[in-house]
């Protein structure tokens, strides 16, 4: 059972990581806690739903997913990025009210995104029109029940995260972003066009969130509240990793996703660990998985406000 939980933890972590990178980037470069980030994920998911409905399967399939779904994924990423850039241009850029004012504004933006989606699709849940797969046969004897879709989610997340790593470390834009995250004024006087870098940050952060939203829809289902429900978990991941640190956000997202899915195993910790009595365990049910993440978040804020990864990138 523990292997199965680890496997689903990996899948869930991939989604959390995609969400938390963007939240952390925007926190450090646009300098506020973006409460609309979860709903940006929802925007991505529903854009993909519409696109997939329009283009269909397009013939062949890869990892159990029709080619059309990858087109839908790309559109979902693009739609989330475009919506975020428009919001930045129309709303955030014209505001001069400090980071708390921006935080409150972003709550309003979150409501607007969700309301528009709900006006069009209703409050109920829906799914992509893709056949649900059976678990991979070769892994079932080990108790691991993962589908090819789960493998596709983890694989795509790894590709996207690696791409971001290359971008941050080896390109001009990445260096500018890191400089700006470090010290915006210094970056500005050094001749970096901070406005343009900020726009690219929105594109990258919201794009990754859009991908996370598409995968979240594939992992469970699509509901207008899906992103908002996940937002606090993503905040927990970002804070655990250290706000403003992209690599911290990856690590935090991985840990929070794992802890979230492994919660059922905590009550029988004793039988899993060596050198510990079998009866020993943390008696906590699966219904407290989210609450556990929030408590971890508050503890990290108290004990180590910079997160486990320490300073910003």
């Amino acid at each position, binding site marked *: 059972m523990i292997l199965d939980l680890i496997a689903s933890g990996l899948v869930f972590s991939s989604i959390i990581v995609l969400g938390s990178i963007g939240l952390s980037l925007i926190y450090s470069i646009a300098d506020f806690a973006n409460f609309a980030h979860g709903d940006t994920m929802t925007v991505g998911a529903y854009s993909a739903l519409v696109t997939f409905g329009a283009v269909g399967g397009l013939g062949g399939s890869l990892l159990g997913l029709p080619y059309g779904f990858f087109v839908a994924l790309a559109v979902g990423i693009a739609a989330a990025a475009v919506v975020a850039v428009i919001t930045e241009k129309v709303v955030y850029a014209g505001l001069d009210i400090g980071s708390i004012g921006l935080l409150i504004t972003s709550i309003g933006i979150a409501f607007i995104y969700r309301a528009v989606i709900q006006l069009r699709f209703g409050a109920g849940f829906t799914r992509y029109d893709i056949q649900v797969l059976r678990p991979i046969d070769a892994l079932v004897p080990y108790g691991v029940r993962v589908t090819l879709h789960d493998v596709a989610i983890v694989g795509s997340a790894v590709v996207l995260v690696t791409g971001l790593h290359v971008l941050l470390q080896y390109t001009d834009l990445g260096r500018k972003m890191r400089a700006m995250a470090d010290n915006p004024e210094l970056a500005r006087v050094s001749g970096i066009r901070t406005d343009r870098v900020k726009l690219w940050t929105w594109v990258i952060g919201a794009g990754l969130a859009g991908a996370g939203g598409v995968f979240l829809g594939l992992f469970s289902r699509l509901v*207008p509240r899906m992103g908002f429900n996940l937002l606090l978990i993503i905040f927990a991941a970002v*804070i655990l990793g250290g706000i403003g640190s992209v690599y911290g956000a990856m690590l935090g997202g991985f840990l929070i996703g794992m802890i979230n899915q492994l919660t059922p195993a905590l009550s029988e910790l004793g039988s899993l660990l060596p050198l510990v009595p079998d009866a020993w365990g943390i008696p906590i049910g699966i219904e407290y998985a989210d609450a556990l993440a*929030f408590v971890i978040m508050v503890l990290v804020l108290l004990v180590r406000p910079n997160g486990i990864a320490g300073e910003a990138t």
Partner: protein
Amino acid sequence: MGVRSIVADPSGYWNGLTRAEQGVSGFIVAFVVLLLFGLLTGGLAPTYFLFLVGLAGMYALMSLGLNVQWGYTGLINFSVAAFFGIGAYGTALASSSSSPIAGDLAPVVGLLVALVLAAVLALLIGIPTLRLRADYLAIASIGLAEVVRIIILNEDQWTNGSAGLRGIPTFFDGWPVLSTFPQTMPGIAISWLPGETIVLRQSFWQATLNVTLVLAFIGVSYFVLKRAHRSPWGRLLRTIRGDEDLARALGKNTYRYKMQAFVLGSLIMALAGVFYAHLNLYVGPGDLNPITTFYVWVAVILGGSGSNRGALFGGFVIVAIQQGTRFLNDFGWIPFDVAPLRLLVIGVIIVLIMRFRPEGVLPPQRELIWPSVVDEAPKQPDTGVRDAKAGESE
């Protein structure tokens, strides 16, 4: 500025108001006229009207509470729904007939239980979070509010879980005269109005009692807060909001003052919860949804952070939005569900306020000053300017 002086010189009073105050006054007058029109023509049932007033009072009460925390002290508390819920659950657990713990106690005992629980919860949330930076406090408090909601949802043996608590008595149950007041009042038929004959029955008198209760809660809270706001304590809170380092440099233990403001505000929010439990006669875990928190936030930033009048105004606007969108459902030609429309309106209002008027519609101005200082200060002292300068003679 007393009522007498308004009557004596209405145009002078009107000219003395700021433009925003004039606008809000005009809005309120127009709204009252509209409601009266609805009442007189029978379009709005009196009992429902009183229910709306009760709801508006409930939001106004929560806004007053949040105003102490955010408006005075600058604490960005996103756990309003948790305190509202703990207030409602506190009184319900003590007084409802289906309570798994105590049950069937007098509602006054429930009120005390609710306030004690809210104070304990405020300390539990405040002790770890009030030292945090403002934006961390926002995230941590909404997280802890969710923890409270999840606990109430899942600990069936204490809270009945998702089934909620039924069989809550009305607040005046067991009081000498008031407990039977709705039954003993005669039904009054009103037939002299245009439209159908309206009969005021038991439910109308019950609603009247509820409105009286919420007005009493608001009255007590409002006057306590008005005094507190102008006191040295309130001045210190405003200093903390403006510049916490300054307050510390003056030798003040800002953590302690922030905690006091946090607990005081939370108690007022719990009062709103107590009222809600005895109005609705049912509480469930859904009442702790974070959307309540954001409604109250909209009321406070719309009214004007730090302004008690603004908080009252914001509470009424929220109910107008909530129930006004509900009326739209009656029109068949609207091609969509109006529930998301309400969300959209709230979101647009937040963005518009932050964009065009971040200080709110009725920002605190003269309410920070003792009225006597403004009214009785000589405009141009005849002699000795330095001695008789306005406001410094005391």
